[in-house]
């Protein structure tokens, strides 16, 4: 009887491990310590946005090419009510990052509009007067790379010397206080 029970649990463990592997493969939200997969985006046409990101070429660029040490990524959706509500606070966060002389050039912010066309991203940008660069992800490719997270979602990555992007922070949903949020980002990123 004991032996049967042991066989049962051994088999159960094997099955769970196998199925859990499949679950991980089916995209999980990013967690601290993960390496963010390759994300390629179009170089912005807007000279100001291009200059902010420190890009000189045309075509596509990888996140690791952004001239900075840390990138904060906001995953949003123009249709998402919570993203709309959060937009003023995210703008404030961006302003705080820029105002702080110690952080200038060391941290940059971008937004990814999941399931949004360029027109839909433009509507969001205009409505909330978003100054930092926003990119559409109409076919959810980047959304999958980031683990099909809910919106809004924030991912902080550090650009390592080898060009890899190490996740140091993730947050689902909005933040109450932009200055407190920035303090957390600065502390966890080691800037």
């Amino acid at each position, binding site marked *: 009887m004991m032996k049967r029970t042991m066989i049962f649990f051994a088999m159960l463990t094997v*099955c769970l491990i196998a199925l859990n592997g499949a679950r991980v493969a089916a995209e999980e939200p990013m967690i601290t310590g993960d390496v963010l997969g390759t994300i390629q985006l179009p170089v912005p046409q807007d000279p100001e946005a291009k200059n902010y990101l420190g890009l000189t070429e045309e075509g596509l660029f990888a996140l690791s090419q952004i001239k900075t040490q840390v990138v904060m990524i906001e995953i949003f959706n123009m*249709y998402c*009510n919570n993203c709309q509500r959060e937009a003023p606070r995210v703008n404030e966060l961006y302003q705080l990052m820029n105002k702080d002389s110690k952080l200038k050039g060391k941290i940059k912010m971008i937004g990814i509009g999941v399931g949004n066309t360029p027109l839909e991203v433009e509507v969001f940008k205009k409505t909330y007067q978003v100054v930092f660069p926003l990119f559409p992800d*109409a076919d959810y490719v980047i959304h999958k790379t980031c683990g099909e997270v809910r919106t809004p979602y924030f991912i902080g990555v550090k650009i390592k010397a080898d060009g890899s992007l190490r996740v140091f922070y993730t947050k689902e949903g909005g933040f109450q206080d932009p200055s407190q949020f920035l303090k957390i980002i600065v502390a966890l990123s080691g800037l």
Partner: protein
Amino acid sequence: MLQRKRIYGELAIGAIAAMCLVTMAYGGSATLKENVYDVGSLKPIDSVPKLQVGDKAPEFTLPAVGGGKIPLSQYRGKKNVVISFVPAAWTPVCSEQWPGYNIAKPIFDQYDAQLVGITVDNIPTLFAWTHQMGELWFPALSDFWPHGTVADQYGILRSDGTSERALFVIDKKGIIRYIDIHDINKRPPLDDLVRELDKLKK
């Protein structure tokens, strides 16, 4: 032989138990947060079209969340009308579609178009649902009773009593200029609507 049968039996039981556990984990993670009820994936379209482009838009008068009743005819000769039917309150996709339109008012204004939202829910449900979207600039109308009459007139009443996710563009003369009976599981891109509104100018 008996031993092998037993091992296979244990393996089968273990696999079933593991699948149940994983299904539970997926079910939990798939459940949408807050008050949105996850309906899962539905039959994309479950109705037979009754109208086509060029037809006169069927007239209706429906109660609005904001109070009173709104007849379609009130826009005749004054505004182009976009009717957005969404299947049901508190469901995925629907709960995002109208908030998206809510920040796209300048686009509707650009084409002299009035958006009208309709669902088959009753007024109290529609009130609670739209209230959490913030202030809507367009009327939300209830096609609850007699149930789904307008949705049926427009050929988009599904067999379960909800409506299709559909867009109708009606010009100032009351003629239907565009119909999009969309896959209920997907949100129609704003681009398609803008393209069709742009055609009204020509």
